[in-house]
């Protein structure tokens, strides 16, 4: 910026800029709105620039780090790790950020890298502020032409409660928009568009672009899952608000259709990329395709998760409906706390709403008995030494270990002997009576084990054996002959070994 010559400066400032009533500074509310939207979008990037501006203030030599880059990577990580139920884990994000931070300054210590990662993440949450968010001020012209400054509050990464009181991170819509850009479109159509694009790209072999599109598709999948999560959460909260005769089943059916559709679609893509991966000659192409497979697999995983949620919704509605529909009819009309108090209250300006909440607070909190303190008690209290806390907790009693007796019916040797006995050649089946007699000669207990194994073989787990790739399987067939044995009765089974073909579809080859 050059400094204007002094003589000109004197002239220009003495003449006030005329503002004719007809020509408003802004062409109209519509254009102004667009400006406001762009100002807001710009504001969302400000915290990232701010990081680089403020890194010099940190104690230590941190100006070598590209903080905005780390911040974008952090938002990326949080978005990708946002699960259906919870969000991304704080420490996990820091841990995944570390390689990037370390790559920027390989010579610095690990502790410093971690400090930088944490600093960036904390600043994206904006830990210092009461709201844990950001505020930008922008100006607009009202309908009457008056200029109004307004506060725009936004968050980039927000903390949400997880199960067990833990805290998880979620990327806000603003952050996702900053990150991916131009997501201000219908989720469904955007996703379809991305997938079509993906298929075209793959069919033309342009994997680099395909990966970009697939990643975008995954961002949208995440956003879509988030939308449905909120929807289901809302249904759980109040059944009365929902028409579960028509609308909710329709909604669930629609969503299930959508999941099925996407699932089919993505499986088709997966097959295509796998082919591309296996056929690719260039190692770079191969690697890209492999990454793409992972991304699409992740998309499918998210869809499956969504689907199980949708299936749970129906029973939940019915249970809630039962609970409320079968209650006894009210004896008197009560106050509808939500409909008559909370709902009309929330749209009010806070300075008026606070009068209502104050009235509720004053009469709805109960009472407290004021403490009456005597000086003697106070002296005693102050002079009592604090209770020493044992950091290690109570001493653990020495566990009394007793060897459990081996209560197996048969020993390992017996099992081995029985299995040896039953290891029949595949072309020579034998009768159970003969096997029992042979077993009795070696060990009086062995026939029991042989009989048990033979019974088990009467209904052999063929499918399992095939899946596990076992070469052969013991089987038993009853041909009607009665068993003649001093200890056992029943059928004299024919025992033989079946060889299993390698392919599950092929018919098993059986000995006669």
């Amino acid at each position, binding site marked *: 910026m050059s400094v204007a010559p002094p003589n000109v400066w004197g002239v220009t400032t003495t003449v006030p800029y005329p503002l004719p009533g007809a020509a408003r500074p802004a062409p109209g509310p519509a254009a102004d709105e667009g400006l406001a939207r762009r100002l807001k979008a710009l504001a969302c990037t400000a915290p990232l620039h701010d990081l680089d501006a403020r890194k010099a203030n940190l104690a230590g030599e941190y100006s070598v780090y590209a903080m905005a880059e780390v911040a974008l990577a952090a938002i990326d990580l949080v978005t990708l790790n946002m699960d259906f139920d919870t969000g991304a884990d704080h420490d996990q994000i820091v841990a995944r950020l570390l390689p990037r931070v370390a790559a920027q300054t390989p010579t610095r210590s690990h502790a410093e890298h971690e400090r930088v990662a944490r600093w960036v993440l904390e600043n994206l949450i904006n830990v210092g502020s009461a709201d844990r968010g950001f505020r930008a001020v922008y100006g607009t012209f009202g309908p009457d032409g008056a200029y109004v400054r307004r506060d725009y509050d936004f968050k980039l990464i927000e903390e949400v409660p997880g199960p067990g009181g833990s*805290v998880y991170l979620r990327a806000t819509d603003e952050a996702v928009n900053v990150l991916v850009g131009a997501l201000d479109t219908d989720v469904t159509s955007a996703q379809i568009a991305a997938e079509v694009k993906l298929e075209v790209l793959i069919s033309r072999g342009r994997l680099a672009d395909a990966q970009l599109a697939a990643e975008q598709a995954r961002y949208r999948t995440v956003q879509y899952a988030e939308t449905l999560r909120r*929807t289901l959460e809302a249904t759980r909260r109040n059944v009365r608000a929902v028409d579960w005769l028509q609308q909710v089943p329709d909604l669930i059916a629609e969503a299930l259709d959508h999941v099925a559709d996407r699932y089919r679609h993505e499986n088709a893509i997966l097959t295509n990329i796998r082919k591309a991966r296996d056929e690719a000659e260039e190692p770079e192409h191969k690697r890209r395709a492999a990454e793409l497979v992972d991304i699409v697999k992740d998309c499918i995983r998210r869809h499956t998760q969504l689907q199980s949620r949708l299936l749970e919704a129906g029973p939940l509605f019915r249970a809630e409906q039962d609970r409320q529909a079968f209650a006894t009819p009210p004896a008197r009309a*009560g106050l509808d706390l939500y409909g008559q108090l909370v709902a009309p209250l929330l749209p009010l300006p806070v300075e008026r709403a606070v009068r209502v909440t104050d*009235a*509720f607070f*004053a009469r709805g909190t109960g009472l407290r008995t004021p403490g009456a303190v005597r000086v003697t008690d106070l002296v005693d209290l102050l002079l009592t030494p604090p209770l020493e806390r044992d950091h290690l907790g109570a001493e653990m009693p020495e566990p009394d270990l007793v060897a459990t007796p081996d209560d197996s019916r048969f020993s390992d040797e017996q099992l081995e002997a029985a299995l040896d006995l039953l290891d029949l050649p595949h072309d020579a089946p034998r009768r159970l009576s003969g096997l029992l007699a042979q077993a009795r000669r070696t060990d009086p207990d062995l026939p029991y084990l042989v009989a048990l194994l033979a019974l088990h073989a009467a209904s052999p787990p063929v499918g399992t054996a095939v899946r596990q790739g076992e070469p052969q399987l013991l089987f038993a067939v009853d041909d009607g002959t009665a068993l003649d044995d001093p200890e056992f009765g029943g059928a004299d089974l024919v025992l033989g070994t079946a060889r299993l073909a390698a392919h599950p579809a092929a018919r098993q080859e059986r000995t006669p």
Partner: protein
Amino acid sequence: MTDERDERAPDGHPAEQPREPSREQPRDALRDRDGGALTAGDVADAARLVGFALQPKLLPARDAEYAELVRRHREDPGFARTADAVAAGLGLIVLEVSPRAGMAVAAAEDSVFAVRMGDYARRAASDAGDRFLHGLAHLAAAALAFPRPEDLADDGYIGRITVNGVDAFVRQACRRLEERAEEAGEVTDPASDTPGLEAAWRVYSRRSATGATKDARRLAGSTTGIIGKAVAFLVDSGFLQRTGDEAGGTYRTTARYQLQVRDMAGSAAMAELLELGVVPVADGTASLLPAASDDGLDLVPDAGLPFHTAT
């Protein structure tokens, strides 16, 4: 719910004390059920009952003497009037005397027993936003504990709430308002120098739900922190009982809470709302209704299920 006659204490010591036979008395004097004048001992008993009432977590079922005094309050009009007079003199409003709730009393506005917002939360004294959030936390906890008018009217109803549930439910309502404002093309960002004109829902929705702290406690300024403080306070008031740790802490309501909300807080807040010129529709049915069947169900980002209020 047990009949109070079954709650008769085995020893019954404070109830039947020898009294002087009936004599000529001034017309307005307090008399016991036999027409006998009340003695100083009776007044002491009445005061003892009020003393029990000031221990909100204590229930007649757990204390034989309390149960006997409650029984006497219900059967002996003279004693009941004495006890009510003692309570009134201390600045207490008697809501109900029953075996299930004991003597349920609420503090009158200027009573020494009343809870003041400034003592409750220090930040609330200076910051209107915090003051609103703390008040709203109490209102929302009650609204979720008694979601339907029937629930508030039904003496046998026990509400169950969780800290995260209260937060999620208010957030959902706020989100719905935000969407509606967006649909209408309203600018909800408040003017910079007039924080008091910011819409109430916006104050709530921009406060973060939770936050990591150094000592793994709940962040006090977050909405779950504020709600957690409210329910913990209500537990101390004998209004809620903690039942578990899931979802930020789960609680069930007590008879006293229902009485307090129904007879005191709800109507007071309602009166204030009417004074502001907001007239909510009151036809005794739930105001959260199913949407009209021809309503579109397009899934747009951030859409909740269609909530439609009756207004």
